[in-house]
């Protein structure tokens, strides 16, 4: 039984006839545990804040005294650049452009990967046949392909979406395939015996069984999609955070570059939070680690 805030209404009936000594012991143990957990949460968050604040402070102090701010800028300068970009240079427009390219590539790449993974594994021997070919394609550094995609799809957002999708595709594809192939044959056999048709087996057995793999892949590729979008913007673009950062470095404006990088980080953090929020209800059926189920009826 997990210890939560004691539910007084439910507990009271049962506790009415348990001896008072035991009651007070239970209350003591529960409140001690609660206190311990709160202290732990506080310590963890305190630690995080301290690390960030300490780094910023050290950066601010060292910059100009020990290291040349021309190369590393400083938090106060980055903040000023951030405000300047925000009000004078349409930072939000650039951020939105990159976010769109990232999201577009993320969805386009992962949906294609998932659909292809199901197709390739549903045809007998097709996966075995194509596997080395796919591995060879996967071996090509995708950055090397990016200029070609700019040539094919222009310098607009389409090329960025396609490049981001390319960055995303293989990770999702490979994970989905291993999820599908990892579905227990016994589960599939039993489902069929119970009357499941091919469509039921696919949607009600294979898909849920592969879901943890797919979600893991989706989580991994959020930053990957952004790398793709940024690579595209670095090569050729007229908008986007990649364009902004690359222009800033070109102009030796380190603080503006850092401000752009900071915004990139915020976008990824926000996307991860959204994925986590979508993922939780989908994986509620999985045991949390360390929680073993007890034997006995």
């Amino acid at each position: 039984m997990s210890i939560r805030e004691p539910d007084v209404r439910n507990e009271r009936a049962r506790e009415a006839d348990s001896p008072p000594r035991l009651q007070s012991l239970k209350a003591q143990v529960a409140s001690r545990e609660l206190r311990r957990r709160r202290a732990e949460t506080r310590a963890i968050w305190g630690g995080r804040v301290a690390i960030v604040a300490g780094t910023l402070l050290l950066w601010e102090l060292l910059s100009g005294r020990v290291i040349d701010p021309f190369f590393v800028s400083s938090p106060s300068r980055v903040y000023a650049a951030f405000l300047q970009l925000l009000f004078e240079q349409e930072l939000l427009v650039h951020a939105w452009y990159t976010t769109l390219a990232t999201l577009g590539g993320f969805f386009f790449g992962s949906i294609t990967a998932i659909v292809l993974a199901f197709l390739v594994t549903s045809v007998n021997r097709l996966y075995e046949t194509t596997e080395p070919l796919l591995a060879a394609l996967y071996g090509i550094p995708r950055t090397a392909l990016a200029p070609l995609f700019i040539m094919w799809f222009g310098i607009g957002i389409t090329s960025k979406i396609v490049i981001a999708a390319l960055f995303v595709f293989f990770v999702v594809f490979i994970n989905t395939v291993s999820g599908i192939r990892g579905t227990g044959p016994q589960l599939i056999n039993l489902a069929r015996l119970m009357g499941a048709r091919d469509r039921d087996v696919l949607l009600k057995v294979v898909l849920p069984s592969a879901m943890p793999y797919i979600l893991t892949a989706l989580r991994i590729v959020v930053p990957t999609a952004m790398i793709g979008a940024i690579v595209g913007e670095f090569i050729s673009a007229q908008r986007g955070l990649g364009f902004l950062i690359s222009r800033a470095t070109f102009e030796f404006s380190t603080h503006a570059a850092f401000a752009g990088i900071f915004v990139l980080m915020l976008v990824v953090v926000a996307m991860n939070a959204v994925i986590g929020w979508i993922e939780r209800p989908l994986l509620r059926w999985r045991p949390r680690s360390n929680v073993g189920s007890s034997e006995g009826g």
Partner: protein
Amino acid sequence: MIELDNVFRLFLPKRRAVDVFVALEDVSLRVAEGEFVSLVGPSGCGKSTILNLIAGFLQPTEGTVRMRGQPVVTLNRATGYVTQDDTLFPWRTTRANVEFALEVRGVATAARRDVVERLLAQVGLQGFENHYPHELSGGMRKRAAIVRTLAYEPEILLMDEPFGALDAQTKLLLQDQLLRIWEEQRRTVLFVTHDLVEAIALSDRVLVMSRAPGRILAEIAVDIPRPRDVFHIHSNPAFPGLYERVWEHLSKELGAARA
């Protein structure tokens, strides 16, 4: 109702080496309608292979498997299978697991609910409808797996060491529940086990198999009247004699395996 005639089943266990493993050698058996038959025998003697042949997961290399006179050539959907391992769908709650067969057969939600409520109540799983398998104990998972199989009312129940992984007390309780359900419905059951007491307590007949290649060595009719009491089966006057007879056949096979 189930007939195996001169069934041979050979396997190629390794993918590269071509050494053929003979799982079943000339096995013939009959299970009558409504009969409870147990298969006992050393590990790897082909007991599960027999169940897989009847379910239609496997085809015999030679010989015939028939059900009600019809040869089993594809998946035999008149059978229900309870395995030794946990094969509940981990992403489905207890209720959704038990509903599965009815759901894929297109039974309406309301009708499904009724069947599931009744079945879960029958094995004392009320209050656990919305739990996921990992939140249940081993015994509860087994009960859920059994009623999941009963939900679509298969004509034959194939049970492959269903209680093998349970502790002794839980095992007894589940044997008792299974017997009560069986006595009510009189479904045909083919039950694989290593536990001789279990085989005798539950069955009408016990078939003893040889070590691999599997053959049927002996058939022992269990003439203990029903309804039976699994908790006190030892004190039944017929029990020691039956146990001796089964053990006599089996011990020879085990001794031969050791030599």
